[in-house]
Each structure stands twice: as structure tokens, then as C-alpha cells.
């Protein structure tokens, strides 16, 4: 590896390659760039020295560190780079310079932010993720995507502005922008940064930018979007807010509430967006376990393993729905069904993604989620409140099976036959899905050969020694998960047989975005209308008032005014001076 590459943040390589791709017309060269760049970046990361500031820079008195790898950010960065490679392969059937370039630049921004060695560098690339990713929504080319992209950009920029505000507080009070974890939300700037991260992580009531934008993005764009922004926020929380108990409850709520929206949502890409919320909830909850500023080793391992697995299986699910959208022109459950006849490979890969996210044993979700569930259950052994959290996570696990494990594959590929007969997905899409499916299985296998299966992932976790001491494939772990999932599946079959499963209906499901898309927009429209009608009248009133005031003043103070008629104006000056002198004298005497 050349010396200059060893010290270069792999994310920068992706950003530069992305910019080059935008200006590269020949498709073969451009697509070679989009595939080679992540491969070289993975190699760069694999050979990077840990715990060292590779690239430092001083500007305006700020010591900036652009590239620092450690045990916490390594796996996040690796997952982003793998996702970037899968995305590039998935997009090979398209010929779109802007989309190819921005997809790579967006991934690069996320990687650069992950390996940032100080808060200011994090902020710069945090903003770049927002700016580069908005093109992936705009590329859909629809009116809905256009308005959604504006809302998306506004909310993402708000997160960035809050982060900068928080950083200013931290700098002012501590004089340092190092990656030191906060110990309390009362620390200078902590609360503002917490909210900034919370927006990107799609916390409850701040979550609707995700369901609003991802399903409206282009076929390729939604796959790319699913990987980076929210997981970058998860990393940021793990870095700056480990062990903050507020995160336990926020995360637990995040796991539960999307489940109810997903069950009634008709657009399967929107179901996946809710599912994304739910999965991020597990990670946020895990980060919150433990001591503030330190966290809990098992739980932080769980959050990191979950993030890695989730990036792959969520990409796989978005890819499969993208393939369905590409061939049929829709992802509405009410218009789909029976597609396994035309798209059996896509159906198979979708099922593998569904089994992974549902955490069936032998799939990646199982070995990742087990860590979090065990950490929360352990806390529940001596804290009754954590028992409630644990039950919420268990409830949400059944919910995941409902919307991502069953609903997505069942209504797209099976259920009633929609009569749609289409071609199987293009080969490049199948290849990308096949690679993601391979990873979902390979990472979830028992470590029969040391270093393979789940032990490969566990060896890369932030606390590898603790991870090595944890065994997910115990008889009671497997039985626990199989009981939960098999009986939940049986509930599905029973409810379908009894016709108690709600039918898929077209429609818009109201969520908290109703507050700004209907109420907020309505208030702005009302103010606009009122202003348009009252404006001319108010202007006329002000004009009349000012004219009358002017006339009065002229009538009083002009050379022919009232004051000029009686006595000398010099007398008025003398009296004014006397009064001023008295006031000054009194002021001196009383001070």
C-alpha cells in the first residue's frame, strides 16, 4: 500500500471517486470507478493502524484529525464500504452519472464522518451526507420526490446546524473538540448535540423524514439511502453518549411504535422504512445500557454487531423491493402478489433478508440481536424497569417478523396472484442481492471453523474479549428464538385462516409528519392568505397615520407653526437647558 494511501481516509477516496464519476461520460470507465473505489477503500481500512491520528490539520486554532480508526468505528466503516460496493453492483444496469457519483460521494461522506478524529471534522462530513444524499431522492424525477427532497434537506440541515451549535458550546467551555464521550446531558452542548444526532437517528416524533423520503427515492437511491445516515447517527451515539439511560427508553419506544404503522402500510418500501426505525431502536437501546459515558461492553458489542448485520440485510430487503419496483412499476402490496413465478431468485433473496432481520438462528440477525437481548435481560435481573424494556424489545421482535419477515415477502411474491408476469431482475441486481444474502448467512453461521461464521464478526467488535466469551448458539438461546418466531408465524397462519388479517388497502397513513405537512403548512398558507388580504388595507392605514402625524408636526414646529407664533424660540431653548441642568444635577446628587 503506497504511503499516501495509508494515511488517507478511505471515505475521501470514495468522495473523490464519486466526483470523478459525475464527470466521467463513458459508462464502462465510470462503473469501473464505482466498483474499484470501495474495493481499494476496504484494503486501505484493512491495513490502517488503529488508535493513531493519520491526517491532522490546524485551521483557525482548531486541531482537526481527519482519519482515526479504532475498535468502535472500524466495523461501522467496514459495513459502509461493503454497502457501497453492493450499491455499485446493484446500479450497474443504469447509466446515470449524477446518481453513480452522488451514491459514492454519500457513502464517502459517511465513512469520512465515521473515521473523523474530532467534532468539527465530524460536522463537515455530517453535512456532506445530507447534501450528497438528496440527489438520490431527486433522481426519482417525480413531483412527490421533489417536495420530499426539500423536506428531507431542511430536516438534515437542521440537524447539522444544531450539531454546529453544540460544537460551539463544547469548544467555548472545554477548549477541546476531541471525541470524548459526554458524561451527562447537562454537559455544555451535550443536549443540543443529542438532539442533532436524534434527528438523524430518526427518534420518535423526529422520524418522519425517513418514511417520507426513502420510499420516494429512485430504485437505486432507496437502497443507497438505507445504509448510511441512520447508522452514522448510531455510531455517533455510541461514541458520545454510551450508557445514557435516556437512550434505553427512546430506543425501546422506537422498536415498538413503527410495528403498528408497518402493519397498515400498503407501500412495501415504506414498510421497510418503518422497519428501519424499529431496527435502529434496538441499537439505540443497547447503547443506552450501562454507565453514562462508558456504556456496557456486551450491549455496545450488540449495537455494533446489529448495525453491521442490519446494513447488509436491510440493503438486501430494499434491493429486492427495488427489483420488484423496477420490473412491475410498483411496490404497493395491494397491487402485488404471485411474483415468485416470474422472480424466484429475487423472492429467495428477499426471504433470506426476511429471515435475517427476524433473527432466525443461522442468520446474521440472530447472532447480533442476541447480544443486545442478553445485555438488557442481564440488567433486568436487578432492575424492574429494565424488565419492561426487555418485554418491549421481545414484543418488537415479534413485530419485526410480522412486517419484514412475513408481510414483505408474502404480499410481494405469494399471497393472491396479481397476474403480473415480468422478467426476473437484471443480473447485476441478482448478483448484488446474492452477495448480500451470502453475507447474511455467512456471518450468522456457528463458528465450526475458528475465525469463520459469527466469530469473524465478534472478533471485530469494540470489545472482542467480551464478545469471545459470549456464545449465541446455546440450546436455550436457540429454543427461545425458535419459540418466539415459530409461534408468531403460527399466529399469522391462524389469523389468515380466520380472515382476521387486515387486507392490504391503498391509502396514505397519517403519521407525525401530518403536523407539518397539513397543520404547519395550513398555518403558513393561512398567514399568507391573511397577509395578502390585509396587507393593502394595513398599508393604507399606516400611510394615513404617517401623513396625519407629519401634518401635525408641520402645523406645530414649522416657522409658521403654533410654537413659532407666541414668544421667542430662544426662550424655549433657555427653558430646555434649565430643565436639562436640573436633571443632571439631580442625577449627580443621587448617584
Amino acid at each position, binding site marked *: 500500500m503506497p504511503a499516501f494511501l495509508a494515511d488517507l481516509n478511505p471515505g475521501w477516496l470514495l468522495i473523490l471517486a464519486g466526483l470523478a464519476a459525475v464527470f466521467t461520460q463513458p459508462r464502462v470507465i465510470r462503473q469501473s470507478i464505482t466498483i474499484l473505489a470501495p474495493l481499494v477503500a476496504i484494503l486501505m481500512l484493512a491495513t490502517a493502524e488503529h488508535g493513531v491520528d493519520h491526517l491532522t490539520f490546524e485551521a483557525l486554532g482548531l486541531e482537526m484529525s481527519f482519519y482515526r480508526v479504532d475498535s468502535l468505528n472500524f466495523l461501522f466503516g467496514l459495513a459502509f464500504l461493503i454497502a457501497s460496493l453492493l450499491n455499485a453492483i446493484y446500479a450497474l444496469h*443504469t447509466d446515470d452519472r449524477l*446518481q453513480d457519483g452522488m451514491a459514492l460521494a454519500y457513502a464517502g461522506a459517511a465513512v469520512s464522518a465515521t473515521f473523523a478524529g474530532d467534532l468539527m471534522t465530524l460536522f463537515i462530513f455530517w453535512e456532506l451526507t445530507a447534501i450528497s444524499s438528496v440527489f438520490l431522492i431527486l*433522481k*426519482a424525477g*417525480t*413531483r*412527490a*420526490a421533489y417536495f420530499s427532497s426539500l423536506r428531507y434537506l431542511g430536516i438534515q440541515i437542521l440537524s447539522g446546524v444544531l450539531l454546529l451549535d453544540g460544537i460551539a458550546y463544547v469548544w467555548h467551555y472545554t477548549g477541546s473538540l476531541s471525541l470524548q464521550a459526554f458524561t451527562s446531558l447537562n454537559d455544555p452542548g451535550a443536549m443540543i448535540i443529542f438532539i442533532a444526532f436524534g434527528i438523524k437517528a430518526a427518534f420518535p416524533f423526529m422520524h418522519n423524514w425517513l418514511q417520507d423520503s426513502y420510499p420516494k427515492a*429512485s*430504485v437505486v437511491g432507496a437502497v443507497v439511502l438505507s445504509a448510511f445516515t441512520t447508522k452514522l447517527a448510531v455510531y455517533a451515539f455510541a461514541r458520545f453518549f454510551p450508557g445514557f439511560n435516556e437512550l434505553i427508553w427512546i430506543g425501546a419506544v422506537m422498536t415498538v411504535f413503527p*410495528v403498528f404503522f408497518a*402493519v*397498515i402500510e400498503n407501500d412495501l418500501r415504506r414498510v421497510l422504512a418503518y422497519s428501519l426505525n424499529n431496527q435502529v431502536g434496538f441499537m439505540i437501546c443497547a447503547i443506552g445500557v450501562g454507565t453514562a459515558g462508558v456504556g456496557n461492553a456486551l450491549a455496545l458489542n450488540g449495537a455494533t454487531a446489529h448495525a453491521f448485520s442490519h446494513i447488509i440485510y436491510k440493503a438486501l430487503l430494499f434491493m429486492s423491493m427495488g427489483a420488484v*419496483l*423496477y*420490473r*412491475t*412499476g410498483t411496490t404497493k402490496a395491494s397491487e402485488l402478489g404471485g411474483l415468485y*413465478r*416470474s422472480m*424466484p431468485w429475487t*423472492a429467495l433473496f428477499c426471504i433470506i433478508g426476511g429471515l435475517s432481520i427476524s433473527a432466525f438462528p443461522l442468520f446474521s440477525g440472530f447472532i447480533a440481536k442476541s447480544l443486545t437481548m442478553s445485555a438488557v*435481560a*442481564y440488567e*433486568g435481573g436487578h432492575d424492574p424497569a429494565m424488565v419492561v424494556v426487555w*418485554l418491549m424489545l*421481545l*414484543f418488537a421482535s415479534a*413485530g419485526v417478523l*410480522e412486517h419484514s419477515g412475513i408481510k414483505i415477502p408474502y404480499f410481494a411474491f*405469494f399471497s393472491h396472484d396479481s397476474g403480473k*408476469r*415480468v*422478467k*426476473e431482475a437484471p443480473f447485476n441486481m441478482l448478483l448484488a442481492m446474492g452477495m448480500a444474502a451470502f453475507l447474511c448467512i455467512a456471518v450468522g453461521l456457528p463458528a465450526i471453523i475458528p475465525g469463520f461464521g459469527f466469530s469473524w464478526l465478534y472478533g471485530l467488535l469494540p470489545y472482542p474479549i467480551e464478545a469471545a466469551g459470549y456464545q449465541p448458539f446455546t*440450546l*436455550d438461546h436457540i*429454543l*427461545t428464538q*425458535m*419459540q*418466539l418466531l*415459530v*409461534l408468531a*408465524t*403460527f*399466529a*399469522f*397462519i391462524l*389469523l*389468515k385462516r380466520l380472515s*382476521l*388479517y*387486515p387486507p392490504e*388497502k*391503498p*391509502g*396514505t397513513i*397519517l403519521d407525525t409528519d401530518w403536523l407539518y*405537512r397539513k397543520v404547519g403548512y395550513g398555518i403558513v398558507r393561512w398567514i399568507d392568505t391573511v397577509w395578502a388580504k390585509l396587507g393593502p388595507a394595513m398599508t393604507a392605514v399606516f400611510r394615513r397615520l404617517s401623513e396625519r402625524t407629519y401634518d401635525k408636526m408641520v402645523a406645530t414646529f414649522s416657522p409658521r407653526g403654533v410654537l413659532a407664533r407666541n414668544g421667542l424660540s430662544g426662550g424655549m431653548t433657555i427653558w430646555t437647558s434649565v430643565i436639562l441642568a436640573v436633571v443632571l444635577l439631580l442625577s449627580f446628587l443621587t448617584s
Partner: protein
Amino acid sequence: MTDQTPSGRDSSGRFVKQAAERVNAMSRTTEEGIHPMSKVLFGWTETKNIGAILFWVMGALSLALVAADLLIVRHEKIAFANSVGFYGIWGFLAFSFVVLMGWPLGQLLRRDENYYGDAGGPPADIDPDLADAGAGQKSEGGH
């Protein structure tokens, strides 16, 4: 499919060719839009009474898994999780609750597809054949 291999070709060459032809046939969608692999991977779903079969198989499996709790000693940190069938019952109830809540929530929260005035078609990067067909249908409708 008849073998067109020249008589002088060795048997291994014939084998490779036949295998390649078979693979090719398995990856080619028929004119009816049925992919040959669909039979291999999911042909079982077309079995008669598959719904009833799945119901009884999954029912029996569920019972067996719950019964397995009688044989396996758990070491749960939360005491009531050691109860027989706890996870199964929780999974069944949670799933049923979520699904059944879909009825009232759908009534409460579902609005017209164009509620926000932005209902639109698919994104621009769908299959060009499909996009062309859609554009053709629109222009026919327009006339």
C-alpha cells in the same frame, strides 16, 4: 433436447455442453412469464391444501417447541422467562395483537392516496420497457 455434438467429441465435452444448455434453460423465462426456477424453489407452495398442511405442521412444531421447555433447563436472568412456553406465548400474543390492531388503526389513520396532493407514478429509473409501455398507454388514453 437432441445432442448436436459431433461424433468425434469426447464424452466430457458433451457433458459440459448438456449441463450448460440445462442451466441456460433454467434461467430463461417462458413466454407465459414463468421462470423455470420458480418450480424448483417454490413449486411446493402450489401443492393442494398447502394452507391446511402449513397450519397443522406449524401447529405441531409450535407444540413441540413449547414441550421442549420441559426438557431443557433455562438460566434466564428474569425469573418468569423460565416458565414453560413463555417465549412462545409472548410471541403468539404480540404478533396477534399487532395484526389485530391493524383494523382500528387502519380506520383511524388511513386517508386517500392523494391526501397530501403528491400521489404520483413510479420513479424514473424503472425498467425502460415498462416505462415505454406506460407512456404508450397514457398517450392512447389521451387520444
